[in-house]
């Protein structure tokens, strides 16, 4: 049962093969058993989950339920949950319990999904390896010497090891797609503004976007049906009506035009990864898709632009952690300045401090035009590049990452090399586009993801293509042996 997708669990519950309580207990047991080694949960909400599961069973018995009522799910610890602490992977918020639910959480609760716990993540979502978490690194279930990717590493690891049938993540520069690729699961980063950011602890407001991390594209669509949509609490969420995301999954992709950016297949790309992606593309061609070469000429500028814009916003967003109202406060501050300095010095980790300092620098008088304004201009150019490409193709395809999951500590002290591993993902955030990472093969028993990028609000098409691909491949069904 633990190998089941959301779609399968929905049927199992509907046909009363299992109760929500039994199902929840099954996953809680798996969590308890494996969390010590994987460290993918910061908090496991066992009691609350079982209580909710019993309520779900009653609801199902009474006929008042939804498709996913009673199915457990893991939530990234970046989403505020009323009554359950929200740490964002930081010592700063170790003691923080939000008095409200994030919109995404509320929608999932309303849909009857049951939270198993809060998943580990890079501190304030800043990292690509989950090693910056105050709660220690998460292990990749495919090889426990390796990172699961980040920042949504806990969610990716939990779904890959089937400690949870699905999870949520957030993606600012690749934080859903890269760990999905490293852990062999499906991860969708929706169009900026498609899913409410209200209650999602902000890292870089103009880039952050929450989305599903699942076994299959079909499951991603099931979750998108719940979480997508306008939210009056988020001014940047769009009023554009949502799709029925499951409706088009089975559409034929015959005649689909796929653009392959030259810049995604150059010397930065690992040869083995390139081969996996080429095989994946062949499968899509067999389904009737047509691949054409395209140009995204400013791809290499995306990393520097991203590492100006994201830290700038982060430096401002993280100013509220000052030890005054909530979060970590240093002991016995001798004055106001001491309270600020020590609370922040003690509460934040190295990478967060690095980005706050970078961000403060690029926004400061005399540097603003040279860095921030220039980065915004590059951002516009990158968006334009994508729009030019989308004039001729339906989607863009390529690798999600330059290589497979790297080893723990391998890049921890080399931030630039860590940043560069986001090469294929960050430009999507800069442009605000939707993209999905789909398991497409293995290199030395380590999963590789293929990234499909769509034009604005083309989530349905992306999941349709991914679903058709998953119907003819089984990479997404592979489970690491230790967790079988």
């Amino acid at each position, binding site marked *: 049962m633990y190998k089941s997708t959301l779609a399968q669990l929905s049927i199992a519950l509907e046909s009363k093969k299992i109760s929500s309580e039994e199902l929840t207990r099954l996953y809680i047991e798996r969590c308890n058993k494996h969390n010590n080694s994987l460290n993918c949960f910061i908090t496991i909400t066992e009691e609350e989950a079982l209580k909710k599961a019993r309520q779900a069973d009653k609801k199902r018995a009474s006929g008042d339920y939804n498709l996913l009522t009673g199915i457990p799910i893991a939530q990234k610890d970046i*989403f*505020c949950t009323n009554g359950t602490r*929200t740490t*964002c992977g930081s010592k700063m*918020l170790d003691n*923080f319990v*939000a*008095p*409200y639910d*994030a919109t995404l959480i509320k929608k999932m609760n309303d849909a009857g999904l049951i939270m198993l716990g809060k998943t580990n993540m890079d501190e304030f979502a800043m990292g690509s390896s989950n090693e910056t978490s105050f709660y220690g690194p998460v292990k990749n279930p495919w090889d426990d010497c390796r990172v699961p990717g980040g920042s949504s590493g806990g969610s990716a690891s939990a779904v890959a090891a089937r400690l949870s049938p699905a999870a949520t993540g957030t993606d600012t520069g690749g934080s859903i797609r890269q760990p999905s690729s490293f852990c062999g699961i499906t991860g969708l980063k929706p169009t900026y503004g498609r899913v409410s*950011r*209200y*209650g*999602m*602890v*902000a890292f*870089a*407001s*103009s880039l952050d976007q929450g989305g599903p991390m699942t076994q299959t594209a079909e499951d991603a669509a099931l979750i998108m049906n719940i979480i997508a949509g306008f939210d*009056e*609490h*988020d*001014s*940047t969420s769009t009023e554009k009506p949502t799709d029925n995301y499951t409706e088009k999954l089975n559409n034929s992709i015959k005649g689909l035009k796929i653009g392959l950016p030259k810049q995604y297949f150059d010397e930065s790309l690992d040869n083995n990864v390139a081969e996996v992606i080429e095989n994946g593309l062949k499968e899509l061609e067999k389904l009737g898709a047509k691949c054409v070469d395209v140009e995204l000429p400013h791809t290499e500028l995306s990393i520097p632009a991203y590492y100006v814009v994201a830290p*700038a*916003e982060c*430096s*401002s967003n*993280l*100013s*509220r952690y*000052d030890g*005054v*109202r*909530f979060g970590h406060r240093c002991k016995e501050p001798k004055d*106001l300045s001491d309270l*600020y300095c020590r609370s922040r010095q003690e509460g934040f980790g190295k990478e967060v401090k690095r980005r706050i300092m970078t961000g*403060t620098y690029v*926004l*400061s*008088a005399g540097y*603003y035009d040279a860095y*921030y304004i220039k980065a915004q201009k590059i951002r516009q150019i990158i968006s334009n590049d994508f729009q030019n490409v989308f004039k001729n193709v339906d989607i863009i395809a390529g690798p999600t990452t330059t290589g497979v999951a790297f080893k723990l500590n391998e890049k921890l002290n080399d931030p630039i090399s860590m940043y560069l591993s986001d090469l294929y993902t960050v430009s999507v955030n800069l442009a605000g586009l939707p993209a999905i990472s789909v398991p497409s093969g293995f290199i030395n028993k380590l999963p590789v993801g293929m990234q499909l990028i769509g034009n604005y609000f083309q989530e349905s098409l992306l999941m349709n293509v991914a679903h058709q691909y998953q119907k003819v491949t089984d990479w997404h069904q592979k489970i690491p042996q230790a967790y079988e």
Partner: protein
Amino acid sequence: MNKSMEWETVIGLEIHAQLATKSKIFSGASTIYGAKPNTQACAVDLGLPGVLPVINEQAILMAIKFGLAIGAEIPERSVFARKNYFYPDLPKGYQISQFELPIVSNGFIEILTENKKNKLIKITRAHLEEDAGKSNHDQFNGYTGIDLNRAGNPLLEIVSEPDMNNAKEAISYLKKIHSLVRYLEICDGNMQEGSFRCDANVSVKPTQQKELGTRTEIKNLNSFKFIEAAINHEVERQINLIESGEIVIQETRLYDANKNETRSMRSKEEANDYRYFPDPDLLPVLITEETKKTVRELIPELPDAKRMRYQNELGLSEYDSDNLTANPDIANYFETTIKITNGNAKMCANWIMGDLSASLNKENMNLKNSPVTAKMLGDMINLIKDKTISGKIAKIVFEAMWNKEGEAISIIESKDLKQVTDLSEIENLIDGIIAENTLQVEQYKNCPADKKRKFISFFIGQIMKKSKGKANPIQVNELLKEKLNS
């Protein structure tokens, strides 16, 4: 520096007007003043992790209204920016404000200078921003208390050009804006509660010098009186400094009303680099011609137009018109009484600026809670006009109304104050007085014409006393002269 040098003062003002919205500028929390500390601060105002601001449309409309009323440009697109600095009563570590693209720019108003000349004061910009909370440094021994009720209140910061040349002009400008925002119903103008505050940028320079002198910014000014005193004090301080060979340092100074002095708060070197950048949580504000048109239609008759109308159409003096139009509550009150009394402007004005405003001042009340409403006063004035009571008796009636004894007509009846206009009754009164004062009557008849007036006054006094003030004085006057001269 030459001591006999003539100095010119240059003043620019930044006004913070709290917009009269029901809820805060970026959250649904109430803006009502005076609640218990931290009871009117929701998750958004507290800057909790994950919360997001949502603009209050009313605040936008109010800012547009102000912009249109001062003939300013309202750009199609205006942008909110973050002003970053750390302070315990600033929950997010940044204030959401506007920087490069404010909602209002390049407006102006006209003020009257001391020598009664019109002077144009340019308004550089007016932008929307959120207020911070309040720090209380005195009440908690060794600690600072933070009250975030005010955090997120909508402010319109109105920035003038340095167009004013003395404290009087600054006050004139301030009063003009103060009156305007209340007419537009976008700010209650309450200075004690901090709904209308002002910072002044002050510098001095030798009259013939073109470049401006080094300015200081005086903060913490919350009454017209203090603002005037603070500016005058600061001007004197700066002139003294320069004349004694020192220089003015660009800095922020705090005004201490108790000591009537300004003292240094922080110098330019210590000033923050606010690291402004567009707030990514808020979309640019787009304002259409349609919206502007709708808002323009909501603008009422403004004080300047009203003042001219009072003088030209109602025949009031400049003094009366100024007084009646300074505050929209008074103007509305006045116009209601005029309607009721069918246009007796001068009489209405006299009562409002006389007995009514004296009573209000005495009890430190404002028109909104006056026990005598415009309707009550108007009705009373009608009773004077139709001679039911005399102007003198009306003062008694007014006082009774003030003391909540009822409306004019019922007070007149219950106190039996109706004017005696019956000729035979008045004749009886006069006859009685003549009979009682034969000696005076004799003296009247024999004295030279220029002394007779004294006796007339005496007789009228006696008659009015006997009638308890109710006899119609005009009738008494006529009939008495008739009788004495017969």
